C-alpha cells in the first residue's frame, strides 16, 4: 500500500536511500540507531523533506504523493512534542484537523466531541495544553489524527517522554484505534517492547538504508550483527 521507490535525499553529509513496501493495515515499527534515518523516512513520507531525485516515487494506495504539499498527503503525524498549539483549547486543537478556519458545523462539532471521547478525554475539551498532563496532550494529538481521517498514521517517538505505565496505555490505545479505523501505522521507536506489543512488522534502518524487514518476533531473535549490536546482544 505504501511504496518507496528509489527515494533518496541528502541532509548535510549524510545520504539516504529508501526502497520499501508496506501492506495496508500493517503496524510497522521503524527501528535503528540514532541518526540512522528513521525520522527522515517519516519526514519524506509526510512531505517535510522532499527528494532530490527525479526517478524517486512515493506511492500511497495508487496515488503518487511525493509532489504533494504536506497538508493534502493521505498521512497524519504525531510528533514527539509541539503537537498542540499552546494558546488553543484541546477542542480547538482538535477542530483544526477538520477546518483550519475553526468554523465548524454542528455535525463537525459532534465529531470532535466523539474523537475526544474515543481518546478518553471526554469533558476536557476546554482545557489549554498547559492544563493537561503529558499523556493527555498526546491523546489530544491522537484525537486530531483521527478526525483528519487519513489512512496512514505516522508516529515519531510520540510516547518517549511518558512513564512506562502511560506508554503501555497509549500503545494499547493506538493499537485499538488503528484496528477500528483500519489505519496503516508507521512508528519510530527505540523500545523493542513497542515492536513486540504494538507492531507486527519491523523495518530496521542502518546508515540511511533499509537493512532488514520482517515480522517483529523474528527481529528480536535475529542473528544479523548490526541488529544484535543495536539490541545490545553480544555476538
Amino acid at each position, binding site marked *: 500500500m505504501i511504496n518507496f521507490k528509489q527515494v533518496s535525499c541528502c541532509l548535510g553529509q549524510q545520504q539516504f536511500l529508501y526502497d520499501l513496501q508496506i501492506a495496508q493495515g500493517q503496524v510497522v515499527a521503524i527501528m535503528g540507531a540514532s541518526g540512522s534515518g528513521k525520522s527522515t523516512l517519516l519526514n519524506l513520507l*509526510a*512531505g*517535510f523533506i522532499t527528494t532530490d531525485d527525479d526517478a524517486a516515487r512515493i506511492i500511497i494506495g495508487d496515488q503518487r504523493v511525493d509532489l504533494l504539499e504536506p*497538508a493534502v498527503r493521505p498521512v497524519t503525524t504525531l*510528533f514527539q512534542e509541539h503537537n498542540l*498549539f499552546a494558546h488553543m483549547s484541546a477542542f480547538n486543537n482538535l477542530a483544526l484537523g477538520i477546518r*483550519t478556519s475553526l468554523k465548524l458545523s454542528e455535525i463537525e462539532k459532534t465529531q470532535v466531541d466523539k474523537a475526544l471521547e474515543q481518546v478518553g478525554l471526554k469533558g476536557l475539551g476546554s482545557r489549554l495544553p498547559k492544563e493537561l498532563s503529558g499523556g493527555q496532550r498526546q491523546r489530544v494529538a491522537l484525537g486530531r489524527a483521527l478526525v483528519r481521517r487519513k489512512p496512514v498514521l505516522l508516529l515519531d517517538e510520540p510516547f518517549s517522554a511518558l512513564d512506562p505505565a502511560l506508554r503501555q496505555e497509549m500503545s494499547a490505545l493506538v493499537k485499538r484505534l488503528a484496528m477500528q479505523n483500519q489505519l496503516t501505522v508507521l512508528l519510530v521507536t527505540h523500545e523493542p517492547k513497542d515492536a513486540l506489543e504494538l507492531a507486527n512488522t519491523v523495518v530496521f534502518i542502518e546508515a540511511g538504508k533499509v537493512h532488514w524487514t520482517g515480522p517483529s518476533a523474528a527481529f528480536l531473535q535475529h542473528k544479523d550483527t548490526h541488529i544484535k549490536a543495536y539490541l545490545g546482544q553480544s555476538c
Partner: protein
Amino acid sequence: MNSGLSKRWLWFSSISFSLVLMPLLLAIVSFASYIWQAQWLSYIFDTYTWRVVWFSWWQASLSTLISLSAAVLVARALARRQSFVGRWLLLRCFSVALVVPTIIAVFGIILLHGKYGYVNQLWSWFGGQPQSYVYGITGILLAHVFFNLPLATRILLQRLEAINGETWRLSSQLGMNSKDLWRHIEWPHIKGVLPQLAALVFALCFTSFAIVMTLGGGPKATTIEVAIFQAIRFDFDIAKAVYLSLLQMVFCGVILWAGLRLGRSIDIFVSIQTSTKNLRPDLKPFWGIVSDTLVLVLATLLVLVPLLAVVIAGINTAWFDVLFDLRLWNAFNNTLWVALGSASVSLLMASGLLLAQRHWRDRNASAALAVEWMGSVILVVPPLVLATGLFIGLNRHVNIFAINLYIVVLVNALMGLPYMLRVLSVAYLKIDKDYGRLCSSLGVQGWHRLQQVEWPILRKPISLALALVAAMSAGDLGVVALFGSPDIQTLPLLMYQRLGSYQSDAAGVTAVVLLGLCLTIFVVLERLVGGKGD
C-alpha cells in the same frame, strides 16, 4: 519545507521594502549631490568641528562608563535584596524611564539642578551660594545616566536573575563570601552582555540630540548630532551638514560593528522574572545591607525625583491659561498622530521584512541575511542624519513644511524599526520552529494561519513593540525640530520653546500633559492590542 508566501503577501512585503528603502536611498542620493560642493579642506582643518567630534566621543565615553558601573552596582543590589520594600517601585520607575520623552527628563533635571533648583535651594539653606552647574557636561551626564542606567540595570538584572538555584545552593555549601560570588558567579554571568550593552549605550549617548541641545549650553558642549542641526537651521550650510552626517555615520558604524564583534546580542526590553528566592549565602553581613540600601535609595532618587519635580511643577496657576490655549491642543493632536502613525508604519515595515525574511530563509540564505541587515542599517543612520537627507532631497521638489508631519512620522517609524524587529523577530521565528511542520501538515496557512496561530501568539510582543515605538515617537524632538514650523507644533517642541523663553509655569503644565499622553499611549496600546495578561 514551508508554506510559501502567496502573491498577496509578496505585495505586502514589497510595500514595506519600499517604505524602508526609499527614504534611505533618497537620503543617500541627496548627500551624494552635495559631496562635490563641499569645501572638504576647509572642513577637515576646521578646529571647531574637531572640538565637536572630540566632545561627542568624550561625553559618550563618560556617560557609558558612569551608566554601566552604576548599573552593575544597582543590578547587584537588586538581585541581592529581593525583598527590598522599594524594589517594585524602583523597577516600575525604571520601566517608565524607558518611555519618558527626553525633554521631560531634561526639564526635571533643570528643576532639580538648575540655578534655582531644589539642590541649590538646599545648598543655600546651609548658607552656600547658588551654583550654576547644570548646563554643560554635568547636565548632559546627569540626563544620559537618567536614561541609560535603567536600561542597563534591567538587562544586567535579568542576567543575574537567570542564575539557577543549584548554583546558589552549591555556593552556600562551599562557603563563598560576597567577593567569591562576584568573581566566580556574577561576573562570568554578566560579562558576556557588557560589550553590546556598552556599544548600545555609547551609540545612544553619541547620537543624543535633545539632551545636548537643551543642556549643552553653548559651543563648548556640542555634539556632531547638534552641529548637523545647527548647520541646517542656523547656518544654512547644507554641504557642511552633509559632511558632518557622513562623519556621524562612520562613527556609528564603527561603534555598532565593535559591539557586534565583541559579544552576545542583547534584548532591549527584557522582562524580569525572579525565579530563585533569597538563596544567596551573602545576605546577612551588615555592611552589605547598608551598602545595598544606599545604592537602591540613590538609584530611586535619581530616577524618581526628576519625574516628581516635573509633576510638582505642573501643579501651578497656569493650568487654566495653558489648557484653554488652542496651541496646546493642536500640539497634542499632532503628537498623538505622530505617535500612532509612526508605530503603525513601523509595524507595517517590520512585518513585511519578517515575512520576507522567513520566506527566503529556506530558499535563499543571502537574501534572508540582506533583509536582516536592512533592519539594522537604520542603527548606523542617526535620526537627524536621515532627516537631514530627506530634508535636502525633498526641499528642492516640494514645499517641505506642507508635508512635514508625514516625514516626521516616516523618520520616527524608521527609527523605531530596529526595536520593532528585535522585539518581534524572536517570537516570529520561534513560531516557525515550534509549529512550522504542524501547520504545514494540517494545512493551516495564509489567512487562517495568521488568524489562528500567528496573531494569538504575536499580539503580546506586537503590543509591546507598538507601545514602545509610539512612546518614543511622541517624545521625539530632533526630527520635529528640524522639520517643524510655527504652524506645526508637537508637545515636545512646545515644551522646548517654553523652556527657552523661561515660561516655566506653562512648561510645567505642558510637561505633565506630555508625560500623561506618553504613559497613556503606552498603557492603552499594550492593553488594547496585547489583550488581557496570561
